[in-house]
């Protein structure tokens, strides 16, 4: 039954390709002086993305977790990545903010029990709990202001929440919210997986300033209260730091003293909205005006878009080709090689081989494919 299990062969094939690639590049990594640890990170990242994409079923999720546990136990306490997520680690790490190496906590993020992606928008923070969306996918699906990129929240096994913020300048920041701040009396909005969370702002801000001061003088985005198991933690989400702070915090984690210097100078600025907010406010106003205009226009025209006397700008509906597709966010793609392509008048015949297909979000593979189409 070669065909009975395209669903079985695909994960196996992917798994074996991953193994082959990782083993083959191990030498290259070592030649470049890159630690084996990084290689393992690559593998973990890769596998997790595959799992998240849901293009492949049952992609070794159990093996993955076993491997992760093994990895965690074997990992030396590498401070140079700064982050530590093990069960062995103390529940609270009082690592001063400035001495944190600003490196992306990739291993932790992938090993988190509940990876959470928070994408700060200028107005809205959408919190997706284990929504299986990678940061890239999240950015693609959510309209983000130009200077904002997904903030990845890393929930460690010890319950710490760290944030990786990737700013427009490419630098990444890691912020560790104060563990001591646990608000229990606040109204906690329920987190729904995949749902959109309205930012909880004002209530949270009040008790926090003291707890947040160690953070460098960055603009604090609306904060969210997250459910992490039974604990509720407040995570200040920072997006765009003021320029001096940005320049200071580089991806290599240098210049802690400068960050410290900036700290007392810049008082904690608690912003309800994002830095680049004014423009979107304007947009909103404009949109509201447009809606009113549209309604008036429709009344006048009697819902006919034929006579366009008024502005043609928005009375024309979007001819969105996309809506015709079943899955608007998946372009069904087949990547393969051709043995023979034949055409007779307008009748085409395709003889293809060794292909990988992504149809309706799922992956399929074939060794041969034969097709007919009329043009």
């Amino acid at each position: 039954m070669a065909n009975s299990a395209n669903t079985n062969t695909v994960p196996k094939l992917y798994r074996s390709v991953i193994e082959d690639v990782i083993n083959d590049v191990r030498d290259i990594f070592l030649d470049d002086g890159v630690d084996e640890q990084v290689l393992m990170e690559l593998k973990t990242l890769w596998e997790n993305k595959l799992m998240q994409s849901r293009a492949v079923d049952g992609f070794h999720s159990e093996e993955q977790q076993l491997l992760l546990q093994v990895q965690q136990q074997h990992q030396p306490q590498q401070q140079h990545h700064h982050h530590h997520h093990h069960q062995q680690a103390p529940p609270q790490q009082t690592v001063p903010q400035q001495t944190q190496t600003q490196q992306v906590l990739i291993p932790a993020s992938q090993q988190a029990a509940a990876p959470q992606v928070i994408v700060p928008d200028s107005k809205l923070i959408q919190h997706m709990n284990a929504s299986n969306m990678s940061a890239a996918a999240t950015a693609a699906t959510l309209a983000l202001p130009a200077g904002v990129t997904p903030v990845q929240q890393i929930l460690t096994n010890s319950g710490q929440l760290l944030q990786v913020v990737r700013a427009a300048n490419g630098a990444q920041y890691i912020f560790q919210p104060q563990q001591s701040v646990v608000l229990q009396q606040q109204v906690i909005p329920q987190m729904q997986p995949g749902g959109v969370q309205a930012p909880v702002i004002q209530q949270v801000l009040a008790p926090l300033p003291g707890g947040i001061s160690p953070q460098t003088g960055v603009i604090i985005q609306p904060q969210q209260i997250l459910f992490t198991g039974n604990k509720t933690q407040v995570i200040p989400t920072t997006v765009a730091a003021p320029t001096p702070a940005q320049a200071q915090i580089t991806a290599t984690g240098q210049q802690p003293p400068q960050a410290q210097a900036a700290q007392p100078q810049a008082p904690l600025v608690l912003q309800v909205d994002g830095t680049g907010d004014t423009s979107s406010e304007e947009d909103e106003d404009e949109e509201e005006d447009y809606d009113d205009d549209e309604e008036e226009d429709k009344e006048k025209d009697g819902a006919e878009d034929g006579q366009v006397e008024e502005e043609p700008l928005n009375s024309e509906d979007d001819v969105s080709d996309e809506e015709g597709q079943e899955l608007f966010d998946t372009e069904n793609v087949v990547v393969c090689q051709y043995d023979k392509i034949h055409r007779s008048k307008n009748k085409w015949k395709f003889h293809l081989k060794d292909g990988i297909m992504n149809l309706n979000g799922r992956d399929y593979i074939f060794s041969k494919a034969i097709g007919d189409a009329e043009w």
Partner: protein
Amino acid sequence: MAYQLYRNTTLGNSLQESLDELIQSQQITPQLALQVLLQFDNAINSALAPRVRNRVNFRGSLNTYRFCDNVWTFVLNDVEFREVTELIKVDKVKIVACDGKNTGSSTTE
């Protein structure tokens, strides 16, 4: 050199994204990432042929066709892909096919 064709697949894209993240965090150099991708090309090309043995038929209507640099690109509409076990219908599919006769030049996607 194997075709770079398969980089635009779930497997390939997730690898590229992972490499990008590592580059962002400066854990690897772009050069190293490129080497990894080249290795991936080899691995996927050599893994596909022996490991997969199934056949698919499809039928649809051809919307566009393009043949450039020995690469065929088709866009088909209302296509049914038929395997022994299952039937998959899509409204639109894009097929990119490199020359299967000999894996000569590598084609960047």
